[in-house]
């Protein structure tokens, strides 16, 4: 029995995958730029994405000039999307995207949905690195969670994952959860960080750890997980400069819970299915100044493109994606003219390609560095000639940086072949 007619077939000008901060901002801006036929597909049962569980404050200083909590920040965008009448399909999982932008998705109400899109914005966000990716030896007992899973358990589901906690990794979610678990009566015994510096924001070290007397152990890692059924202890060791545990430095900490905050990975399985070229450095798509991927009409923004520290930057980037997707739908194309070369500590840039004719306003190029640099400079070279030379007191891998490429630069170097961005000592 074939019930092909049971498929739900749709045509949409713009389909946005993900109703987190990136997808919502992209939708709002695309609508403002004249695209009215928009559909947002969201796998969760509410819009807002991960912000719904980020109940802490500190969001929106750039975007709204005030300090909001995650749900408040998301709420502003959700209200806007509703006001504009943009449709969101919840509980909807995208299963497939073809190169010609045919999307297959599923939800309990519509069943299998097939949507032909004029343009697609990928805004699926990121996921946390699990324990397996670290290959931490030891037992496979209960009590080991990623910090984000613990955050969801506490803030959305209303359950405590443990009482005595050690946190591996000083990423922001780990720091935030150190405070959250403490406020809810748990004892957070230590935050253990492999690197000699924290990968989270400095303000979070102060207000989440220092405020509560939680020790941050830099250059340490977990070398053993103990416990048969539920976690009973972790063994931590100091690491040397090549991040190998130093024998003889082991200490055992009794705990029933280990939270992992050891990095985020862009969630690009769908992008891969679609044939989008991905960067081995970021794990996200390689895009041009319009945030268009290697597949024409497919754009990416937010944490699926590269992991951001601040949601304000996600919103700004996603506004741009909404705008450029709208331009694509009006028939404007964009290509890949000049590759931005990275060297001297710059690990990657977003965008990776620039077409000078598209730079009508200062273009924000975001990047991360590979290690800590003090009192150094971020320089931009056009065909070997230095045009930007910014003094930076400190550059760390934990914090995203940006430089501007200005229309004037491109006017001056009208047949520019190469742009490079690097960190320099002087």
């Amino acid at each position, binding site marked *: *029995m*074939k*019930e*092909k007619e*049971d*498929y739900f077939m749709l045509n949409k000008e713009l389909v946005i995958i993900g109703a987190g901060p990136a997808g919502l901002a992209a939708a709002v801006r695309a609508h403002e730029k004249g695209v009215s036929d928009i559909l947002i597909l969201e*796998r969760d049962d509410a819009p807002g994405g991960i912000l719904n569980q980020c109940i802490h404050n500190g969001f929106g200083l750039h975007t709204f000039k005030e300090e909001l909590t995650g749900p408040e920040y998301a709420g502003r965008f959700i209200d806007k999307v509703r006001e504009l009448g943009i449709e969101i399909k919840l*509980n909807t*999982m995208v*299963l497939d995207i073809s190169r010609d932008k045919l999307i*297959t998705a*599923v*939800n*309990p*109400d*519509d*069943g*299998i949905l*097939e949507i032909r899109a004029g343009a697609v914005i990928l805004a699926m966000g990121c*996921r*946390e690195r*699990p*324990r*397996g*990716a670290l*290959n931490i*030896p*030891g*037992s*496979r*007992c*209960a*009590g080991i*969670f*990623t910090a*984000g*899973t613990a955050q*969801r*358990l*506490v803030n*959305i*589901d*209303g*359950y*405590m*994952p*443990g*009482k005595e906690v050690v946190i591996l990794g000083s990423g922001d979610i780990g720091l935030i959860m150190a405070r959250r678990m403490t406020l*809810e009566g748990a004892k957070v015994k230590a935050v253990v960080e492999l690197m000699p510096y924290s990968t989270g924001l400095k303000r979070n070290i102060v207000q989440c750890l220092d405020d509560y007397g939680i020790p941050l152990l830099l250059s340490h890692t977990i*070398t*053993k*997980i103990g416990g*048969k*059924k*539920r976690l009973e202890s972790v063994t931590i060791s100091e690491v040397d400069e090549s991040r190998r*545990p130093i024998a003889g430095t082991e200490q055992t900490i009794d705990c*029933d*819970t280990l939270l992992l905050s050891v990095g985020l990975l862009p969630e690009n*399985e769908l992008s891969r299915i679609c044939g989008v070229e991905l960067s081995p450095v970021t794990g996200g798509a390689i895009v041009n100044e319009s945030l268009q991927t290697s597949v024409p009409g497919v754009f990416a923004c937010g944490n699926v493109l590269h992991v951001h520290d601040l949601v304000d930057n996600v919103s700004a980037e996603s506004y741009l994606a909404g705008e450029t997707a709208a331009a694509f739908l009006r028939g404007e194309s964009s290509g890949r003219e000049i590759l931005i070369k990275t060297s001297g500590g710059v690990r990657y840039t977003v965008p990776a390609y620039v077409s000078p004719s598209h730079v009508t306003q200062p273009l924000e190029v975001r990047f991360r560095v590979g290690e800590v640099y003090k009192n150094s400079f971020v320089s931009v070279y056009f065909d070997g000639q230095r045009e930007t030379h910014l003094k930076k007191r400190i550059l760390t891998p934990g914090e995203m940086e940006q430089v501007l490429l200005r229309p004037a630069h491109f006017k001056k170097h009208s047949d520019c072949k190469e742009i490079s961005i690097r960190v320099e000592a002087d």
Partner: protein
Amino acid sequence: MTDVVIIGAGVIGCAIARELSRYRLDVIVLEKEADVAEGTSKANSGIVHAGYDATPGSLKAKFNARGSAMFPNLVKELEVPYKRNGSLVVSFSEENVPRLEELLENGKQNGIEGLEILHREQALEKCPRLSEKVVAALYAKTAAIVCPYELTLAYAENAFNNGVRFRLNSPVLGINRIENGYKLTLSSGDTLETRIIVNAAGLYADAINNMVSARTLEIIPRKGEYCLFDHAAEELAPLTIFQTPTAMGKGVLVTTTADGNLLVGPTAVDVGGRDETDTSREGLEYVLKTAALSVGTLPERQIITSFAGLRAHLETDDFEIGEAPDAEGFINVAGIESPGLSSAPAIGEWVAELLARKLSAEPNPSFDPIRRGIPKFREMDSEERTLFINKNPSYGRVVCRCETVTEAEIIDAIRRPLGATTLDGIKRRTRAGMGRCQSGFCTTRVLEILERELKIPRETVTKFGKGSELLTGRR
């Protein structure tokens, strides 16, 4: 009085139970853990060995040959992921090639067909990613991969549907001889009387044997550590790749699993305890380094988890199968290490036939050999998916996004015979949580479904049985 009590719901105990359910017998399986396949059966290579390596004339040789031949039909009856992918034993030097010839000769004596020595170029045709060091290989056409815990579950479910009773969370504390049989004392204080005991207790088979027989056994737990990679890594090993075997076992292999992941391992280290399934830094490093000899660089960034299993080794280096000499009606099925999984169907058949004769059992007229697995959304095409969602909308709700597992599959896993009651039970039955995010996303959803379906407070849901609770209370 029960006819047969089987101690241990691993692949051996469950295979015997299923084969016994062909007869009109009252059979009970006792398992100390909260689920079937909680021991060695869940943590091994998942290989159906062709059967060339066991010593000719040994029980290992006999049961492996027969078991391997039974698989193609069995996995159809039980709907278990299985693939005859073939295997290679690679040699890294010309001097070692005679060792391959010995294995080939051994295989012939064991009655194994489809064995062939390949030179480097021929081997490369089958497996293009073999390392530069490989000079020749023994090819075994009939080697296969199977999902070991799904096989165990399938055996158990089929046995259950054919009338076998299972008692989980039921460690055996003591066994006494009584007239015409045995009396078992369980940890709950309950007792059971039975005519026959089958000792399929895996790592604890010595303890069970020694409760009854004066001819004691000693199981030596031999640990094997593995690394599991994401699906994307599977093209490295279209066949299972072994290195030349050593006294401790078949060495480190590289294989694709029946579910399409890349698996490398195991180590082989004798350990003291029967619950020492911790992984170690040295072990994992050794596995990765040794596996790289076979296939060159491994994509270490795609490792999603590591695990360790324990082999139930006996000093005799062979299976111990049969009635204890001094205990009538007490059947040992002990020392079942590699090729135990490959041999399981044949051991099940042999033990069931032995007991049927012993008990003069009649065939069970209502025996149904067919077990249906959980329909897998990820393997369906759009039309099938639509049909399933029309019948049951929860097929439209994806709970595990890495492995595309729907809510309907999770509910099926809980409601089916011997259904899942733990997070790991759900994982083994549906693959929810097996993927690259290692349950980061679906744990909270699965906890919710378990709470709802089992009607128990969420704080009491466990990972793998009492003591492994995931939550410590309400916020």
